[in-house]
């Protein structure tokens, strides 16, 4: 891949890069800076034999590495999280959630889990790509995604509990 092809590919994948950066960074300026640093490093580092199909994963790997280097001093914190089984009674209310409430719930997740969830559920990356980006094993990636969803589930249900909203009781057919 030539420098010109690499440059074109970076521009094509810019939205995905910026989306992840925005979900990680504290504000839009920090997100833009992270994207720019990723692109600069990619222009220097991405080897010539890297195929176009793996370029996006390579770019995201660089971004996650840069973010970890600057913001996460002690691992990804996955081992510290234990999620108990979550009740399901308020899940039916999720369709009433505003986008801001959902975003706030996502922001409460640890960075590594948030990033994994964004890439898996929003961008649709398969497990194999996530293992490459985050440097986790496949079972660890599965656990990370399951944990992230359970945590988000708990945060969202807690929100409904705090504002005192309950699902309407089921209407049973009367004989």
């Amino acid at each position: 891949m030539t420098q010109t092809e690499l440059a074109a590919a970076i521009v094509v994948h810019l939205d995905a890069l910026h989306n992840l950066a925005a979900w990680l960074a504290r504000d839009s300026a920090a997100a833009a800076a992270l994207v720019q640093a990723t692109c600069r490093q990619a222009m220097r580092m991405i080897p010539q034999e890297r195929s176009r199909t793996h370029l996006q994963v390579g770019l995201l790997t660089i971004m996650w590495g840069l973010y970890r280097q600057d913001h996460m001093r002690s691992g990804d914190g996955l081992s510290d999280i234990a999620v108990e089984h979550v009740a399901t009674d308020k899940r039916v209310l999720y369709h009433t959630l505003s986008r801001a409430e959902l975003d706030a719930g996502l922001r409460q997740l640890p960075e590594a889990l948030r990033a994994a969830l964004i890439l898996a559920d929003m961008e649709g990356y398969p497990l194999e790509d996530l293992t490459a980006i985050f440097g986790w094993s496949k079972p660890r990636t599965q656990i990370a995604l399951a944990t992230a969803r359970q945590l988000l589930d708990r945060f969202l249900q807690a929100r409904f509990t705090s504002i005192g909203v309950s699902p309407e009781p089921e209407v049973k057919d009367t004989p």
Partner: protein
Amino acid sequence: MTCDEARERFEDLLHDRLSPADSQSLRQHLSECPRCLEELDAAGVIAALIRHRASYHRAPDHLRQSILREVRRQQTLAGRLYQALHTLWTTPPVLCATTAILVLALALPLYHRWVGPAPDPAARVVGEARRDYDRLLLNYPPHGTNPAEPTQIQQWFQQTLNFSPAIHFWGNQEIRLLRGYPTYLMERRAACLIFKTGDAISTLYIFPGGDIPIPPHNRRQINGYAPYQATAHDQRVLLWRQGELAFLIVSRLTNPELDQLFLRIRNP
């Protein structure tokens, strides 16, 4: 299918990446395991929420423009440099030429150092004598025997040298003998006499030099003699052979003065 095997396939099921056979087998397990079904249901709800409802942050136009500018800048600087290097190392004729230049650049200094011709003996002896002359001027006045007694110098030479230097000139009123001492030149013993003419110091070396070829060029004609002459900066050197002995004068005298000194030493 066990619960663990089922959980391994959740991700693929959520994103429609399961083969029909795996999908059928997983659905069979889910119909029999309410806990896995609940887990998958919860994961599916969350995944759908994120996919459809969470904010997607597209790259703003100013960032896109900024990245494009950066990419163009990289292409103009590093890109061109890289392309040039890439071309250099991947085009066979250019690669061959570059490699040849590199090999020559590395080999030539080594060739000159190890394989190249050694400097001729006359040049070597002139070089050594000039360095000795420089050392003498730095350490002036020199130490040695009493110049008023050439016989003592001769005795010293007889005791220390393994040859008899044929010295006929021991100085006069104009060209005073300052010192005489045995020394080494080209790793062979040599007799050295120091003369002073006005303020100019001259040294005469006499040593076994029958094996030293005197170059045929750069000869100075002095009254029918033709000693080899070398000049560097303000130093003049005359080198000649008499039988098995070589004579060498290093001096800062003018050419006529040096000619006079030469004739006095050369003529019996």
